[in-house]
């Protein structure tokens, strides 16, 4: 703690802060532009000037930049000093010289940091009468709109895009008053984190291009705290709606998970909610018109009432509550997790590793803090994008120690970067092919899955002689293995990253062995295991069988209930068709008309994450609640309510049939399954009140509430009630604002503070700027490793991969845009999704007689398919990568051996 004096009053602030951090943490209004809590200080904009005094006798003082001055003990400053105010005001005036007065037509208006700061500076009138400089804007792709005339040259965009996120196609050009931020030529921004420019830019240069298609002001959006459903990272989001349309996704700060940023899949995948494939009314096969909900439920329930036999197929993309309701309807023995056999086995293995330990799961925050990392088999940029962004920060941890030795504070970004240059800490990446994270790796290795496992085993063996040593030659050289083991052993916070994406038990085992060996050596190792979907771990925790077992369990003619799941994606069209044929009634509860729903005899329209509350367990084992944003039109309701209705109509489910609210469901879940005991505490119950009232989803300035539905009725309809959460659907209730009365962090529907309308207002909700939210970051970890931890995996390292001269080993490859089911339904994401492909290296292309860009036929045990040929030079010989989940890609079991030949030969 350091005592500093601001305007002659003393304050205690944590050590190592700068004056801007300290002032904002203490709640002062000090304007700034170029500083960002995640990006540090560069002292470029001169907006945060304060007057510093030598001691109590110094009356003159001198102007300093708060962001560049350490908050050392006994620092005396004045924020209110007339000279400092005048200086800040003049900076505000310069910045406005070229800034257009187009706020009413600018998407940023009303949530613009520049607007806020100009008001704070009391810079009201413009004296400049000259012409303004103008630019030609660029088309930066489907996500980000570019309007350079509004730029105030704070450089935050390049600092985020290049320094923080590692993008290389975006830069600052020209100099002086002509500085231009953009690409060398028009084109899609290549970084998968480009959408963060929208929030990093303090004004309207970069705005959300998808929001533009259905624009709504921030104050006209009804918002709720939500969770991203497009991968297992579980990033916290704020989802905004108006007129029944989900308008956009913004970041919701969670210090343990996503911090200030989101990936583009998470930010732009939301449009599936508004998509044309949505189901909004019950459908009964053979009837052209929509069915009444009561008819559909009665018809679906009648075969259930007869007795047992119904199989329920859950889903790793549905909430815990929905899966649990299905489990209650069909019984634990007839509940399927909704995952294919291989995926079910591997995700269960991940769950076992996290439960038994010894290494605890790493949050994204832990990953960013790690000072030595081994990535084994996982292309994290495409399977858990925000983990890749965290790992990009981890390589700074070790060099930062050198900066600290030079007494450079961590927040002094320019000085730190000058001191560190290109120094990077140990990040070792062993994957099948090159990944977008390779540019910051100390070394990369590319090998077949079994060879990756062997490298992992060799590292484990180097760390702990008790671990089995792989026999024969390795795909990486021994010196490198020794270096990796040395770096992990020497680290203060080592991290092992692996996952299920290669569908390889051997790789998972090897990662566990490395973690175990590090633990045995007394190192505080953490492990990050990537699972595929937003609730994969939750579905695995509920138990249940896999899809193969479910097929075997299903008696011909028995009803099959499928919850938010598209089975052909999981087990292939043929198997799914056999399952459907075998089933009697096929009841699908889903929000989207998937191929499975098209086959259904009855479809019940389910709520998406934005239309119903639900709890999701991310890959770290953290349970987080996504709150309903709006009431969907039509007969849409939460999946668990449809399943509850089926219980009531069929007389099954026992006590579960009496569920009325979400708290009833989570309460029953917590009672029935001890692993979920904490799930009730993930968010305050629906009975929670703050200042005696609910928390309002609509901001106080929400406009047109009495006129909004005037095209339907001139009477203002009664607002919908919310039995499931402590949020209200209107502006009545507690308006989110920082202390003294701040909502519990899980229930913050939006960030706003007096004078702070932009995303920067989150500063006032944190214990210290950039630190956790007051009251703790939302979400609860359900899984902690048991002490003293499980013994190391038994068995030997796998034998080396032998390329076959006729067949290729096909392994899955993932795409951030396209591989995930729901985000691929969003037009902006779909626009960047590649065609289904098979990838080979140059030698193999030649051997197979294939041409890059041509078509190939891939023939495996699961049938043949025609795929576009992609050249990936880094793939090992004898290994082919198959893009999974992409449009036009038929399901095939991966990894598997397959023949590959040019499509021309087919004709």
């Amino acid at each position, binding site marked *: 703690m350091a005592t500093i004096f601001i305007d002659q009053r003393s304050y205690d602030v944590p050590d190592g802060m700068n004056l801007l951090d300290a002032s904002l943490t203490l709640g002062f209004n000090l304007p700034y532009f170029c500083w960002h809590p995640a990006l540090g200080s560069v002292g470029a904009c001169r907006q945060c000037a304060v007057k510093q005094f030598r001691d109590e006798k110094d009356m003159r003082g001198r102007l300093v930049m708060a962001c560049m001055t350490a908050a050392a003990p006994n620092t005396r400053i004045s924020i209110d000093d007339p000279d400092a105010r005048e200086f800040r005001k003049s900076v505000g005036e310069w910045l406005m010289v070229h800034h257009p007065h187009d706020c009413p037509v600018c998407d940023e208006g009303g949530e613009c940091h520049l607007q806020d700061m100009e008001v704070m500076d009391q810079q009201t009138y413009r004296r400049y009468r*000259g012409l303004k400089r103008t630019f030609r804007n660029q088309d930066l792709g489907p996500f980000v709109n570019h309007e350079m005339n509004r730029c105030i040259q704070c450089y935050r965009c390049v600092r985020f895009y290049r320094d923080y996120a590692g993008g290389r196609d975006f830069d600052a050009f020209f100099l002086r008053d002509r500085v231009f931020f953009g690409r*060398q030529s028009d084109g899609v921004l290549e970084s998968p984190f480009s959408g963060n420019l929208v929030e990093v830019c303090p004004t309207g240069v970069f705005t959300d291009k998808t929001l533009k298609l259905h624009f709504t002001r921030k104050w006209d959006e009804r918002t709720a705290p939500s969770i991203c459903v497009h991968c297992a990272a579980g990033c916290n989001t704020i989802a905004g709606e108006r007129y029944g349309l989900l308008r956009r996704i913004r970041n919701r700060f969670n210090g343990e998970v996503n911090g200030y940023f989101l990936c583009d899949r998470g930010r732009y995948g939301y449009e599936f909610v508004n998509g044309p494939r949505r189901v909004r009314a019950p459908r009964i096969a053979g009837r052209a018109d929509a069915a009444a909900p009561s008819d559909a439920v009665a018809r679906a329930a009648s075969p259930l009432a007869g007795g047992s036999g119904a199989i329920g197929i859950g889903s790793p993309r549905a909430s815990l509550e929905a899966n649990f309701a299905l489990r209650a309807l069909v019984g634990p023995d007839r509940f399927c997790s909704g995952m294919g056999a291989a995926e079910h086995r591997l995700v269960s293995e991940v769950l076992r590793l996290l439960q038994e330990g010894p290494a605890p799961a790493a949050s994204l925050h832990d990953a960013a803090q790690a000072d030595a990392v081994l990535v084994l088999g996982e292309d994290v940029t495409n399977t858990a994008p925000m983990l890749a962004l965290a790992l990009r920060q981890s390589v700074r941890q070790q060099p930062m120690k050198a900066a600290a030795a030079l007494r450079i504070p961590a927040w002094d970004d320019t000085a730190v970067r000058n001191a560190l240059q290109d120094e990077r800490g140990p990040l070792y990446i062993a994957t099948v092919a090159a990944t977008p994270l390779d540019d910051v790796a100390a070394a990369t290795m590319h090998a077949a899955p079994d060879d990756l496992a062997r490298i992992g085993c060799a590292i484990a063996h180097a760390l702990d002689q008790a671990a089995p040593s792989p026999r024969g030659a390795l795909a990486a050289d021994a010196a490198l293995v020794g270096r990796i083991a040395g770096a992990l052993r020497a680290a203060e916070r080592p991290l092992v990253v692996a996952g299920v994406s290669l569908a390889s038990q051997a790789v998972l085992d090897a990662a566990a062995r490395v973690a175990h060996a590090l633990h045995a050596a007394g190192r505080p190792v953490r492990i990050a295991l990537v699972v595929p979907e937003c609730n994969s771990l939750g579905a695995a925790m509920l138990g249940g069988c896999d899809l193969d077992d479910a097929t075997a369990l299903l008696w011909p003619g028995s009803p099959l209930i499928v919850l938010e799941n598209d089975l052909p994606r999981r087990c292939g069209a043929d198997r799914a068709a056999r399952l459907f044929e075998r089933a009697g009634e096929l009841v699908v509860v889903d929000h989207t008309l998937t191929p499975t729903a098209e086959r259904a005899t009855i479809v019940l329209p389910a709520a998406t994450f934005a239309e119903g509350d639900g709890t999701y367990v991310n890959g770290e084992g953290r349970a987080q609640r996504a709150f309903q944003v709006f009431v969907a039109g039509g007969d849409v309701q939460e999946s668990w309510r449809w399943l509850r209705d089926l219980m009531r109509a069929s007389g099954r489910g026992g006590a579960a049939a009496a569920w009325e609210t979400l708290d009833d469901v989570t309460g029953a879940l917590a009672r029935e399954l001890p692993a979920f005991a904490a799930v009730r505490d993930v968010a305050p119950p629906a009975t929670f009140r703050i200042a005696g009232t609910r928390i309002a989803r609509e901001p106080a300035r929400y406009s047109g509430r009495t006129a909004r539905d005037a095209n339907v009725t001139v009477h203002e309809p009664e607002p919908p009630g919310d039995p499931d959460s402590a949020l209200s659907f209107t502006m009545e209730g507690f308006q989110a604002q920082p202390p003294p009365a701040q909502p519990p962090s899980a229930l913050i529907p939006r960030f706003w503070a007096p004078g702070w309308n932009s995303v920067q207002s989150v500063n006032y909700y944190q214990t210290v700027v950039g630190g956790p939210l007051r009251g703790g970051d939302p979400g609860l970890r359900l899984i902690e490793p048991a002490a003293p931890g499980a013994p190391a995996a038994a068995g030997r390292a796998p034998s080396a991969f032998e390329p076959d001269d006729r067949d290729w080993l096909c392994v899955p490859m993932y795409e951030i845009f396209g591989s995930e089911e729901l985000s691929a339904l969003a037009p902006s994401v779909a626009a960047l999704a590649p065609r289904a492909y098979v990838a080979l290296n140059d030698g193999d292309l030649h051997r197979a007689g294939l041409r890059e860009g041509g078509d190939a036929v891939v023939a495996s045990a699961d049938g043949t398919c025609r795929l576009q040929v992609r050249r990936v030079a880094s793939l090992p010989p004898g290994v082919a990568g198959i893009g999974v989940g992409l449009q036009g890609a038929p399901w095939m079991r991966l990894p598997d051996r397959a023949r590959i030949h040019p499509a021309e030969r087919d004709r």
Partner: protein
Amino acid sequence: MSFHAKMAYDATFQKSARELAPDDAPFAYTPENRARLDAILERYPADRKRSAVLPALYLVQYQQGYITPGAMRAVAEALAITPADVEDVVSYYTMFHTRPVGKYVLNVCRTLSCAVNGAGRVVEELCAKLGIRPGETDPTGTFTLVEVECLGACDRAPVVMVNDAWHECLDPAAAGRLVDDLRARGEAALSGCLHKVEEQ
């Protein structure tokens, strides 16, 4: 060059009768220049090729007079960086030309020391002599006149840099003679200057 917002830089700066290469015109170093670039690249570690971006761009400029988008892409490829990285540098430095310039680029320093020693009169003389304004190229495509900031020769102000060579302590008459000399003797006129940029 002007700071005035009314003046569109692109319209007048380095205006020339010569044809602009289209954006997508490919660029390739001549074998000699490629050899020189390779020699320069040898000075840097293989993963730090980007350190050679300035000499690589000068080689482009020696070869074709100015730097086209295609050339930026070629440089990016040669140095294993992105075209954005290259244009960042090209657009920042006034010494790099993105449009055709005359055979001789007269860079007149207008920063303080040169200004108080009469750089303004030197510019006037050159304008009158060549019949162009600063930022323009004469109709023959021989001379481009540019006003630049400090050239680092304040002790011998005012200074005019012609292509790579400084010509120092110039008064208007001397500047006029310099132009005549360049017209009469061409490249040879540059050899008499006090300093010359070291050959890359």
